[in-house]
């Protein structure tokens, strides 16, 4: 319980520092502050998707309905963070590059992730039979997940990026972040991750209780 208050404190401190310390990237200026939020959100989105694929694989092996519930919940959370990442990214794009959407490779990747999640839930709503729905959406989640490495790691390096500043930031992350920036950024990353797993755990418990109530056993 106590750690939840610590989490609240940590998040407040991070938000405070993200606005009061000097801007992380001098060339872009104040707008670069958004990377304290935008990158953790995109990172969580990928983690959520990985979790969904993991539970999907688990479901296909053991056919335990709880795993299907967890896969769907991970996908829901992932969709939320994907939306957040897209919105914060568009805000950044508007301020620095002048337009909300430019089809820069990384923007395209996050767009495709949104579509994959959307398709996943469209499929879920199209099948009535529970077991069939679980099996088919599990296969789709795994299959779609396989394209993710292509999107995130391969495509941005192959397709000519119209906006070099995108890769400049990525290089800057590792090499030229000042210790202050680095500490705020990594704390933000950790806090976001903890929040995600906390929410996911709550959803998992709800699913467990619901299943118990329905069947009388687990």
């Amino acid at each position, binding site marked *: 319980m106590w750690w939840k208050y610590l989490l609240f404190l940590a998040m407040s401190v991070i938000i405070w520092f993200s606005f009061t310390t000097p801007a992380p990237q001098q060339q872009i200026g104040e707008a670069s502050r958004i990377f304290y939020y935008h990158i953790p959100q995109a990172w969580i989105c990928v983690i959520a998707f990985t979790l969904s694929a993991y539970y999907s694989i688990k479901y296909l092996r053991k056919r335990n309905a709880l795993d299907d519930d967890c896969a769907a919940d991970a996908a829901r959370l992932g969709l939320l963070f994907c939306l957040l990442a897209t919105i914060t990214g568009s805000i950044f794009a508007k301020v620095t590059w002048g337009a909300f959407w430019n089809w820069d490779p990384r923007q395209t990747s996050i767009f495709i992730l949104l579509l994959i999640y959307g398709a996943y839930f*469209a499929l879920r709503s199209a*099948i009535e039979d529970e077991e069939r729905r679980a099996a*088919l959406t599990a*296969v*789709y989640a795994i*299959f779609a997940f*396989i394209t993710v490495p292509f*999107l995130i790691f391969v495509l941005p390096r192959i397709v000519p990026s119209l906006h070099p500043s995108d890769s400049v930031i990525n290089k800057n992350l590792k090499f030229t972040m000042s210790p202050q920036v680095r500490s705020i950024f990594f704390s933000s990353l950790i806090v976001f991750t903890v929040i995600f797993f906390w929410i996911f755990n709550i959803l998992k418990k709800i699913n467990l209780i619901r299943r118990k109530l329905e069947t009388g056993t687990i």
Partner: protein
Amino acid sequence: MGDNSAGLVSKSLAVYVKDLRLELRSRYGLNAIFMFGITTLAVVSFALGQSSLSPKILGALFWIIIFFSAMSGLAQVFVREEEAQTALTLRLTADPDAVFLGKLFFNFSLLILMAVVITPLFFIFTDAPTAGAINFLVILFIGIIDLCAATTLVAAIIAKASVKGALFAVLAFPILLPMLIALTLSSEKILAGEGLGEVSKLLQFLIAYAIVMITASFLLFKYVWQE
């Protein structure tokens, strides 16, 4: 039915030949694909009139035609089984791996047939530069492999869903988008006259994509197919 010791190749071939025969009887899939492709091409050409297009737009247009023709015609390889209620028999008599490979190859044949007709027509109607024709065909061939690799499994998934029509495009599009981006980019470069060396990175991407997708579909298919 052959005896159980028949190899995977001959079983897949049996499934493929069955689908081919069915297709030649009714020509439903062929009609859908051809009519879509030709209609789209005609509309584009009519809208163009006398003006010519830049390689970028030509590349994008070509793959739009191919992609949407594929969307209209590739799902029916599984949907037809469900609707004719022959799916259960197929499940009982055939090895799932053979079913997948047979239907994959069937989709591939459909697309090749369509490409053979649509590609020359495309070049004629839009007056596209034919300098790098061989290179263009290489990209086309790999693109077709990619298309059927990704869509055959999705077709199997939606065949069992209740609302089949739009769901196929909705599910297939996100998976196909990285491939489509690479295809339109490389087609644009080829139509602009560059050689295959310029697009080698994109080609590697497409080939890797095809291999990964076929392998993943092959491994996942039996979870979709078996009840």
